[in-house]
């Protein structure tokens, strides 16, 4: 633990990750990760490629079972987790419309033999409206741009009205204008739906300015703080770059990260 890592104690967190270890085959992906996410926060989960961001997201949503430790997610009854995986795992030619994709977000709450009702349709169009995609409801998913697809993915993830939304590298391949619009949508949704948001990204230039707290992870949590609490943004950027550079050589810059041994940083992990 460092000075920049918050203690894993708070009254009613929505997510509590306690001493989690995850191995992907032989490789260590997460090493004794402890993390508390408070309700209503917008968290930027950052770190170098292969640092374990995707693994941590998947562990929180239950796709990966930790080898050691515990993850507790406390959502109110009937409130599912909203999850937006990396876009590369979505077939761009899948034969569905934007509205069909959003409807998929309701399947989990439709019971054993799901049938679409008028209320479901209203919620689908409401979700599409929230992300500014209502007029594109009938377009096939393959005909949408990267930014439009991401908005549809968010509409799918929020249509079941979750209290927790996790997004994995959602701005990859999206241009600057679409990225700005994307963060504006997330801010609007957060206010309108009382969402807690966890966004994994390696985009050091943009994400810290958009979130309440930054969690910097590379196998373990190195930094968990509000962006303004980090000495200054330039330092953080520098440290992130150096950290990325130095980690490959088994060193960590002490300016940001303290109370660790140099040899702890030598083990690499892959994003799964």
């Amino acid at each position, binding site marked *: 633990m460092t000075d920049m890592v918050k203690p894993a104690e708070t009254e009613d967190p929505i997510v509590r990750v306690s001493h989690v270890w995850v191995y992907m085959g032989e490789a260590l992906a997460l090493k004794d990760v402890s993390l508390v996410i408070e309700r209503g926060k917008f968290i930027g989960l950052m770190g170098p490629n292969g640092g374990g961001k995707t693994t941590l997201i998947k562990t929180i949503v239950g*796709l990966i079972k930790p080898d050691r430790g515990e993850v507790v997610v406390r959502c109110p009854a009937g409130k599912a987790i909203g999850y937006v995986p990396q876009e590369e795992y979505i077939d761009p030619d899948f034969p569905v419309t934007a509205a069909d*994709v959003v409807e998929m*977000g309701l399947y989990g709450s439709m019971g054993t033999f799901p049938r679409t009702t008028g209320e479901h349709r209203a919620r689908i169009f409401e979700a599409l409206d929230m992300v500014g995609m209502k007029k594109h409801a009938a377009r096939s998913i*393959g005909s949408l*741009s990267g930014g439009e697809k991401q908005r549809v993915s968010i509409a799918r993830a929020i249509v079941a009205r979750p209290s927790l939304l996790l997004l994995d590298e959602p701005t990859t391949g999206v241009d600057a204008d679409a990225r700005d619009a994307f963060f504006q949508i997330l801010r609007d949704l957060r206010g309108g739906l009382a969402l807690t948001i966890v966004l994994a990204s390696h985009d050091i230039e943009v994400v810290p300015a958009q979130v309440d707290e930054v969690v910097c992870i590379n196998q373990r949590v190195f930094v968990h703080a509000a962006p303004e609490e980090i000495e200054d943004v330039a330092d953080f950027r520098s440290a992130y770059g150096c950290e990325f550079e130095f980690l490959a050589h088994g060193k960590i810059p002490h300016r940001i990260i303290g109370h660790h041994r140099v040899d702890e940083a030598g083990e690499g992990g892959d994003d799964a």
Partner: protein
Amino acid sequence: MLEDMLSLPFFQRALIGGILVTVTLSLLSFFVVLRRIAFMGAGISHSALAGVAIGLVFGMNTTLTATVFCAIIALLVGYISRRGRVREDVAIGITFSGTMALGVTLIAVSGKYMSNLFSYLFGSILTITTGDIVLMAFYCLATVALIALFFKHLLLISFNESIARVSGLPVDFLHYLLLVLIAMVIVASIKLVGIVLVSALLVLPAATARQIKGEYRPVLLVSILVGLISLFTGLALSYTFDLPSGATIVLCACALFFICFALSPMRRRKPVKGG
């Protein structure tokens, strides 16, 4: 000509049985293509020969033994593909050849059934009985009913299994259910198109439909239409020119695919990039 054809009892049975299995195979082909499990379908269908051979050798009902054997192989290959240490294509390749070899050996050991081998491999509509029609109806209607009930869930696991899991869907159950349904309909189709050719009808209808339409509802309808056109044209050509019926049906389906592929509006669509 058409009246002559339709007046023949064996042809009537072939037509009824053909409609049942073609519609069901076309529906299944939608998920086979979306989930990219065409090779798995081929592996399961070829294992049917061993299932039939077990029935022949031990004097049991061949449909029952083929169904059970195919379902076991489907579940085994499905399990290996998800959890095994052997790669899926390798597991299917081994199963594909191993079960075919087992089937041929068992039939040879029995000594008296080699003449039937060709009809199991490539179909023989002359051998379709009223009992076979009842069985086809049972297998196909059960499959269509289960697909209808779980259609949305199957669609979501085909779209993205991770999202389906986070939504709380029983992804593994649905995956194995689909494989068992494929195994059942393969067994029901043996007399129409045969073990070797049935895997073509597990792919071609939906693959053809996806050349025409980009949204799943019309894709499903066009898949069924492609299956039925292939069936009717194939049976008519088979009767007229005295050709093997199963092979002619599959050739018609292939021809439809290549025509649609050549004229496809989907193929001309440019990929969309950027924001």
